[in-house]
C-alpha cells in the first residue's frame, strides 16, 4: 500500500517538475511577453497541481491534505491575477516585450 502511494507521489511530482521545466524553458526562449506569460502560467499551474497531487498521499491527515489543496487554489488565483496585470501592462506599452 505504502509502495503504491510512494509510486504515485514519484510519478506525479516528476510530471510536475517536467511542467515546471517546460514553463521555465518557455519563459527563457519565447519571443515576447504574452507568449512567455502563456508558457509560464499554463505550465506552472499544471506543475503545481501535479506536485500537490503527488504530495496528497503523503499528507498525514485530512487537514494537511486540505491545506495542500488550498495552496494550489491560492496559487491559481494569484497566478491568474498577476498574469492579467502583466499582460495589461505589456499591451499598454509597459516593459519592452
Amino acid at each position, binding site marked *: 500500500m505504502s509502495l503504491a502511494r510512494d509510486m504515485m507521489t514519484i510519478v506525479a511530482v516528476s510530471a510536475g517538475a517536467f511542467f515546471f521545466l517546460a514553463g521555465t524553458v518557455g519563459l527563457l526562449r519565447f519571443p515576447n511577453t504574452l507568449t512567455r506569460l502563456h508558457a509560464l502560467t499554463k505550465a506552472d499551474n499544471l506543475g503545481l497541481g501535479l506536485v500537490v497531487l503527488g504530495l496528497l498521499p503523503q499528507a498525514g491527515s485530512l487537514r494537511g491534505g486540505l491545506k495542500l489543496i488550498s495552496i494550489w487554489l*491560492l496559487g491559481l*488565483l*494569484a497566478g*491568474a*491575477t498577476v498574469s*492579467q*496585470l502583466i499582460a*495589461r*501592462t505589456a499591451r499598454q506599452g509597459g*516593459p519592452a516585450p
Partner: protein
Amino acid sequence: MSIATVFEIVLAAVVLGLAIWTIAVPETYSATVGFVAYGLLVALIWVRLDAVDVALTEAAIGGGLGGVLLLGAAARLRNADPTAVETPCKLVRLCAAALSSLIAAALVAAILLLPDPAPTLAPAAVAKAWATGLANPVTNVLMAFRAMDTMLEKVVLLLAIVGVWSLASDPAWGGRPGPRHEADPHGVLAFLARLLPSVGIVVGIYIFWTGADHPGGAFQGGAILASMWLLVVMAGLTDTPPVSSRRLRFILVAGPGLFLVVGIGGLCLGPAFLAYPLALAKPLILGIEVAMILTIAATLGLLLAGAPERSEQR
C-alpha cells in the same frame, strides 16, 4: 554532509548568483526582476534560520511590495537617458571592487570571531512573557519590550508618506495619488479583483490574528491587505482617496496615535510610559495592533501609489 546542509549551500549559491546578476546585469529592468527573485529566495533563508516572522515580513514587504515598487519605477524610467557615459572608469571600478571585498572579508572574519556560546535574550523574553499574555516572543518584543522602537517606526512610515506627498506639484495638492486605472468592468481582471481580495483579506486578518501566539502579526497582515487594496485599484474598481481626505489622514495616524494614547495612559495612571497593566495587557496590545494593521495597510498602499497627481477641485 546532511541533505539539509546541501540544500542550504545550494540555496545560498542561488541567492548569491541572483545578487551578482542584480548588480552586474546591464539592463535596469532585468536587475529589478533579479532583485525580486532574490527577495523571495531570501525569505526561504529566513525559514531555514527558524525566523518565520521575519520570513513572512521579508516575503510580503521586502520581496512582494518592494518588488512591485521597483518594477513600477523601472517601467516608468524605461525612457530615461542611457547613462552609460557616466559609468566610472575601470580603475575606479576595480578600486571599489577591491575595497568592497575587503569590507566583506572583514565582516566574515567578525562573524567567525563571534563568541561561543552566543549571548541571547531569548530566555529573558520567555521569562517575562507573562506580562503580556501573548505566546509569540517576537510580538512581545515588538509590542512590549521595545514598544518605543515600534512606535517611532510608525512615525517613520508617516514621514515617508509626508515626504512622498510633498513631491506633488502645487496644483495637484489634495488630489488623488497615482494614475487612474481603467479596466473593462466585466473583464477577467475585474472578476479576479473581486474574487481574490475576499480570500486575501481573510488570509491577511488571519496572519495578523495568529501573530499573538504564532508567527505573523500586523506588519505581515497589513502588507497583504495593502496588496489586495492595490489590486482593486489597479482593476479600476475603485480609486485612491484624495490626500486631503480627513478620514484617510485619520487612518494613517491611527496606529501611532493609539500607541501614544496608551503610552501616555501608562505614564499618567500606570507604572510607566508604554507599560500595560497586567489585566489589560493583551486587549490593549491587540487594540493597538488593530489600529496598526489599518495604518500599515493604508500607508504601504499609498507609498506604492506615489505622490498626488490628479487634482480634485481643478
